[in-house]
């Protein structure tokens, strides 16, 4: 196990899906590129060359991370959101003459839903594929939505909320057979589940640096050779003209270092987290009455446990945990900007009141047995106290 990050000592941090600390080895790798190796990669002198070499090396690492055929297929961006914008908006606008229909799933990250809304406003049509009760995309429903003018399918590798892993190999096969481009948002799964864009027939893939313990503000889009996209940021022509702007070399070096560490540790780290995850799931369902697991029992991210508890509300659980120094997450409406419950939970077929009662626990590189034990010790008491306050509980028991 790698050393504990300073700053999380005071808090039992169980919200790794929201944000991750940067690995100290990553910071060490980045440092020279913020000090002596500060050159602009476009400059032809030696100082510029150091940056060019670092960029090329980083591109090779990220290509290897997802088994891309050619490092040139990696476009560095300011993060996953920009990468997904480039994939959906860039591809759709470039390929408009081939068709105007795009397919996404109901459980995509909110950023993909909002990009899809933008496409609709700009003359495209978007269909959403429903999921089953485990959150798995229904392949039959996907096939049903494919039209002669469908140009793009965008499906996540795994859900950032409920952790369900999608059958992307099957979807990739179907998309390839139909001659439709396939984009995968791999932000939630990267570093936890191996990704192979060649094997799975993925044409575009979104990556985020922070989700593998790299710095924030860096991401990448894999764009397979032969796939044409319009750039969204126009300027000096960096990144093969697909993403202009002087490269953040330090950030990209950090991203690549994070990918290297991830590749070396993925198997052992995932195994370790999976054991804790299963321990948490088993204990919670056993010790808390009327508790339910959201998402798939088996096909789920190694670090994700997502529950709902009848009669109580997620934000009040979150605040109770906060008071005890534990950081968790919820899909409750009261915690969202729009006051709407999580669209992912609703798409499972849950009612609003059930979505309100959700609690998400996500583990990571510096999770300890103490963190897991603390959560498990506190949960039954917190649930009981809130249920004693809840009118819904009384109604049910009456």
């Amino acid at each position, binding site marked *: 196990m790698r050393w504990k990050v300073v700053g999380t000592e005071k808090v039992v941090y169980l919200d790794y899906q929201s944000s991750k600390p940067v690995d100290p080895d990553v910071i060490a790798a980045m440092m020279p590129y913020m000090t002596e190796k500060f050159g602009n990669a476009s400059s032809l002198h030696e100082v510029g060359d150091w940056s060019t070499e670092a960029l090329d090396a980083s591109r090779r690492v990220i290509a290897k991370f997802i088994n891309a055929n050619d490092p040139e297929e990696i476009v560095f961006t300011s993060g996953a959101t920009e990468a997904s914008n480039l994939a959906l908006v860039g591809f759709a606008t470039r390929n408009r003459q081939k068709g105007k229909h795009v397919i996404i799933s109901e459980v995509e990250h909110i950023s993909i839903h909002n990009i899809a809304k933008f496409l609709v406003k700009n003359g495209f049509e978007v269909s959403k594929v429903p999921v089953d*009760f485990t959150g798995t995309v229904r392949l039959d429903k996907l096939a049903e939505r494919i039209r002669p003018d469908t140009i793009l399918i965008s499906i996540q590798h795994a859900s950032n909320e409920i952790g369900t892993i999608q059958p992307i190999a099957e979807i990739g096969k179907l998309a390839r057979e139909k001659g439709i481009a396939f984009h995968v948002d791999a932000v939630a799964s990267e570093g936890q589940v191996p990704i192979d864009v060649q094997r799975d027939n993925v044409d575009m893939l979104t990556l985020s640096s922070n989700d593998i313990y790299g710095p924030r503000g860096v991401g990448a889009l894999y764009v397979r050779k032969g796939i044409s996209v319009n750039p969204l940021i126009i300027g000096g022509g960096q990144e093969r003209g697909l993403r202009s702007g002087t490269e953040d070399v330090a950030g990209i070096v950090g991203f690549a270092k994070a990918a290297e560490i991830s590749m070396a540790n993925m198997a052992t780290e995932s195994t370790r987290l999976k054991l804790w995850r299963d321990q948490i799931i088993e204990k919670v369902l056993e010790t808390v009455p009327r508790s339910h697991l959201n998402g798939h029992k088996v096909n789920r991210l190694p670090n994700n446990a997502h529950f709902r508890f009848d009669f109580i509300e997620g934000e009040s659980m979150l605040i109770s945990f906060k008071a005890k120094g534990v950081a968790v997450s919820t899909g409750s409406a009261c915690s969202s900007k729009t006051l709407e419950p999580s669209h992912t939970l609703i798409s499972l077929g849950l009612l609003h009141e059930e979505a309100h009662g959700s609690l998400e626990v996500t583990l990571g590189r510096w999770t300890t047995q103490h963190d897991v034990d603390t959560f498990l010790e506190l949960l039954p008491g917190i649930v009981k106290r809130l249920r004693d306050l809840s009118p819904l509980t009384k109604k049910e028991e009456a």
Partner: protein
Amino acid sequence: MHTMSKSTNYSKKVLEHFKNPRNVGTLEGDNVAVGRVGNPVCGDLMDIYIKVGEDGKIDDIKFKTFGCGSAVATSSMITEIAKGKTLDEAMQITRQDVANELDGLPPIKMHCSNLAADALHEAIKNYKEGKHGPAEPGEARFACPAGEAKNIPGLEEFTGKGVYHGYEKPERFKDKRVLVVEFDHESVEFALELTKVTGRVILASPLKDLATNDELKIEVKRSDIKHLKQAELVSISGGTEVEKVRIHDLDENEEYDLFVDAVVVPA
């Protein structure tokens, strides 16, 4: 969808009668008759009890209604209008009178849910024909014309494609998310039966509580059934099969979507 959301745009008076219905209950005795109307597909069933005095006037009137907001409100309102009237006067009360007293009903609710006048007339007719006593389940008369059952968009389109009429073959719902529309004991029993084959059974009841016996009520509470109270099925949508239903929460007077794979309605 826009017209459907307007269908729940009830007047304040409708909502007031829905929340505090007058004259809820049943009546017994020799000078009592009951009228029952309703259509299970519309989700309404209404019993109106009248007690006729020696002067030929309606002395007392009670109702029991299983249905949406306007069904409850129109029942409540008609008991207020009819009380004290002679049988002939009461026969003159129309659906429109009831709607007017309630400051109007959404157009789509005028026919399917405004059954109160029909139930009252049925009770008067039964009284005059000497048919006294409680309503029998077999006596239900479907006053709502068959065509109006189609007022639930998608019901006909998805029949056999996720929509099933009646309580048969629970095994075909294996691992599916099933919405059962509560209608009678059988519907509740079927929902309980379904919990053996799938982890997701939703029972939608139009009233605040199940209209069934205490034993079944306790069983439902103890089961994994998700019980929706005061919930009305508004529409069914999907691709080649059912994917989603729209539910009207009568308590909050709000509509929302619910993802399901199948819907079970009465035969």
